[in-house]
């Protein structure tokens, strides 16, 4: 049981690559902390520095209050689950789980008891004598978990442990990993590139980009009040619609292309900083679920778009539409392919499945103005008061 604390931690590789930049992060005892970001953002490097597999160039790393910069991995009392599990193919499941205990010279009977207990937690009891090669992907993942928890470490590290599983199993294991983590109650640092995993599993989520921590908070705050355009675009699926807009007089309205949107009083108060942008360009963010189809007789602000495509998911319709405003892409938040596929002015809305909409229609979306976000176009920072 311990906390993890990073204080201005840097990682600079010998070739000059600055992988992690002044990272400061506190993981409370028992907390499930998720590091998320696109590939190459430094999240795995940060995790490996906690593990001691990677040297710390500068800054201080503490585990349980003790500085561990110069400690070897085994002295840090951590356990780690790797993306490819790194199960020893020549050992049985029981031997894999018990290897670390064997290295600590635990007596045989105690070792066996612990391995059995761990296997029970993970539902692996009947597979104990199999080799990893004979197991399914999900079972291997469980063995990797077992190998980590059997040691009762003070910190639990996981590096994309679910990304080798197929989509259905991943959803299932997501819940299971969370359940096990709650049960053993050990501070956990979990690295993933999948924002859904981050949102569903983390007590708190730290979003990283290009070696820099963007924001760290609980998932709902990240979603509702992203600090900058990158976090806004990275968190949420389908992603937030981002348009260039021109702020009207006193920050009371915003113009998207040819459409003028009047902001209610509550919004102008919450985003009072907008007033100083009057006449200037900002980035306007609208999440797809904040654009329901407008009902007849609606009075609030409306966005009108040309429907390109309608995807019926059963529970809702995902409508791809086009407006004449300029679409904004947050650099690095999405894969290059997705960015390339984004057509100028395209947007996405999630509407009631009974909405009569088809490609070619012109549709009015009611704007849920509580969810509207504004960002500075130069710094990318969110505009609040």
């Amino acid at each position, binding site marked *: 049981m311990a906390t993890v604390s990073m204080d201005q931690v*840097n990682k*600079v*590789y*010998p*070739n*000059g*690559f*600055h*992988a992690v*930049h002044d990272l400061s992060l506190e993981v409370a005892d028992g907390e499930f902390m998720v590091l998320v970001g696109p590939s*190459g*953002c*430094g999240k795995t490097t940060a995790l490996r520095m906690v593990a*001691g*597999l*990677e*040297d*710390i*160039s*500068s800054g201080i790393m503490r585990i349980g209050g003790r500085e561990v910069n*110069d400690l070897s991995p085994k002295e840090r009392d951590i356990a780690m689950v790797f993306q490819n599990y790194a199960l020893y193919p020549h050992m049985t499941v029981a031997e894999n789980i018990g290897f670390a205990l064997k290295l600590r010279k635990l007596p045989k009977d105690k070792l066996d008891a612990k391995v059995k207990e761990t296997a029970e937690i993970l539902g692996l009891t009947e597979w104990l004598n199999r080799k990893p090669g004979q197991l399914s992907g999900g079972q291997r993942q469980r063995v990797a978990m077992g190998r980590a928890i059997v040691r009762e470490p003070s910190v639990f590290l996981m590096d994309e442990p679910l990304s080798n599983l197929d989509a259905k199993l991943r959803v299932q294991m997501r819940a299971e990993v969370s359940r096990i983590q709650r049960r053993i109650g050990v501070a956990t640092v979990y690295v993933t590139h999948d924002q859904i995993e981050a949102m569903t599993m983390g007590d708190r989520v730290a979003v990283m*980009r*290009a*070696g*820099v921590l*963007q924001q760290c908070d609980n998932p709902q705050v990240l979603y509702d009040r992203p600090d*900058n*355009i*990158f*976090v806004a675009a990275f968190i949420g699926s389908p992603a937030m619609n981002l348009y*260039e807009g021109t702020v009207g007089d006193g920050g009371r309205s915003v113009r998207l292309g040819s459409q003028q949107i009047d902001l209610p009083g509550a919004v102008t108060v919450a985003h009072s900083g907008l007033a100083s942008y009057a006449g200037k360009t900002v*980035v306007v963010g609208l999440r797809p679920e904040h654009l329901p189809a407008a009902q007849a007789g609606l009075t609030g602000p409306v966005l009108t778009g040309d429907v390109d495509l309608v995807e019926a998911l059963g529970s809702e319709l995902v409508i791809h539409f086009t407006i004449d405003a*300029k*679409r*904004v*892409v*947050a*650099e*690095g938040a999405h894969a290059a392919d997705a960015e390339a596929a*984004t057509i*100028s002015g395209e947007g996405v809305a999630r509407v009631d499945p009974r909405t009569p909409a088809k490609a070619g229609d012109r549709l009015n979306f009611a704007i849920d103005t509580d969810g509207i976000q504004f*960002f500075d*176009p*130069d*710094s*990318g*920072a969110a505009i609040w008061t």
Partner: protein
Amino acid sequence: MTTISSAAEQPTAAVVAPPAGRPDVNRKKLARLGWLFSAPALIFVAAVTIFPILYSIVMSLRNVQVSGGGIKMTGITGANYSAVIHSSVWRYALGFTILYTVVTVLVELVLGTVIALVLERLTAGRGWMMALLLIPWSMITVINAEVWAYIYQPTYGVLQAIFQAVGLGHPDVLGTPTPAIIGMMVADIWKTTPFVAIIVLAGLVMLPGDVYEAAEIDGASGWYTFWHVTLPLLRPTLALAVMFRVLQAFGLFDLPFVLTNGGPGTSTTSLAVLGYQAMFKNLDFGGGAAVASTTALLVLIGCLISLRTFRVQVGKENT
């Protein structure tokens, strides 16, 4: 479409000058461990190969006298090399070695590729054929030489019996210069073609099958597919195999030593046989060392050229 990078004041993870960070202890520790682990092997190899190579070069540049008490080296001289280069025997041996290398490697390559293509289509018994192919590869060369010596034997060998039966007389293969060279090449080809075939076959099996399906759908003929799909994909495998075969054939010694002892006359005297005879028959260590050093130099040049040519393949493995 506009692209905005968030938080402009934040530096991106580009290449920046390394700050005064602490040295990478992990890497250093592991590197030290690496040298510790490889030192025994590297020192051993260096002691037994590099030292003698240098010694051999020194010896080739000095006057060497062999007496009952050992060898004595005096002065520094280029005489050994000039004697070697001006010797017609050496020139012949060089020419013979090159001819032998080129012909055997070429034949082995073509024949081996054909065999591999045949075996690739074999549906049953491929494992057994592979096992059969491995026997000549693993056979002691001296024994291979004895088998062919018996086949070529001029009075009771099976070859002369067959020639006689079809009315071609009594060939004395190993007693006549040109047939001796050809006969030796046949023995070499018998032993080494299977090796080439196995490599090519393994290379063929590893080729992605969908490439063939795509070629077939595109309407390519068998020959066309072979020339324009199979062969280019096999090139790295073939190239490395050829390199090793060439360098190895250049050191030809066992076959001529047992089959013909370099004869008749000097017609099958390879560079290695010449060097051996100079050193251990004529006790001319300086001259022998000069022959050996020039051979080594030629091999080294060949190796460097091959490495340059195939750099892509070797380099790729390092990443």
